[in-house]
């Protein structure tokens, strides 16, 4: 027995109810099934990117480059989420990637504002000189 839609769902999805009743509403045959790359290859790429990001994060001295290595690590994790989402047939993984992208955007905005404030006070972008809270 199909669950009754809540009122917000009936408002939001009113427009495609006619789509659901028509015969042409079929999920398209998945042409991506032709691509037979095993899951381990996706995860290997994810791990390689993550380790490269971690290496850059540890060894680089420019604050902005360090921040970009953080973004690289986030992207490696996104790839792992996407690969598992595909191989488990669950769309939740892609939703997680969506939220990770949104949070990374917010974090980039705040982090870059902090970098600008640090640069204004110390005139340097070298993390070796930003090692205490006191100027």
């Amino acid at each position, binding site marked *: 027995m199909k669950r009754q839609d809540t009122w917000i769902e009936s408002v939001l999805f009113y427009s495609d109810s006619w789509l659901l009743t028509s015969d042409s509403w079929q*999920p398209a045959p*998945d042409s*991506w*099934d*032709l*691509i037979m*790359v*095993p899951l*381990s*290859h*996706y*995860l*290997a*790429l994810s791990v*390689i990117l993550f*380790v*490269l*990001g971690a*290496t*850059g994060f540890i*060894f*680089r*001295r*420019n604050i902005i*480059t360090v921040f*970009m*290595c953080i*973004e*690289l690590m986030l*992207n490696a994790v996104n*790839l792992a989420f*996407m*690969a598992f*989402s*595909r*191989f*488990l*047939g*669950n*769309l939740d993984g*892609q*939703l997680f990637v*969506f*939220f990770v*992208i*949104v949070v990374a*955007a*917010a974090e*980039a*905005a*705040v982090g*870059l*504002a*902090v970098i*600008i*404030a640090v*640069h204004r006070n110390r005139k340097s*972008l*070298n993390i*070796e000189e930003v090692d205490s809270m006191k100027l």
Partner: protein
Amino acid sequence: MTFLFYIMAAVAVLAALNMVLQRTPVYSALSLIVVLCALAGVYLLLGAEFMAVIQVIVYAGAIMVLFVFVIMLLNAGHETPSHRSIMAKWLGAPLIGAFLGVMLVVIWNQFPSTSAASPKHLDGSPAAIGHLLFKSYVLPFEVTSILILVAVLGAVVLAKKEF
């Protein structure tokens, strides 16, 4: 068509390597944009067309543009050689390599290439993601909108010249 994945993967790894090894931050930023676009291509090969386009528009098109703006605003220029000990590099790099090797071995054993795990049918269209986003995940969606608002306010306050 599987060779497309390996081309994208090679491009992503080479660009990430370039990003980590470059001296100039602007070149690192441009290499990161290449990585993001290569990953968007991989998402496309995974059948996730919506997330691929979101990756290009939001990540490569907004976040990295913000990065490049800040690099040019602060006149980041070049990076000076480190005053840190060389011992950190000589000890750290092999350990990172060992970690990478261990992770690859674990992945290879855990998810064998010859197993029966095949990609399931997945509808990555905006309609499917929208259905999931506004039905099951409506609370995280609203919370992230508040998060973005707070982030914008915080960024404006932190980067102000004076109060």
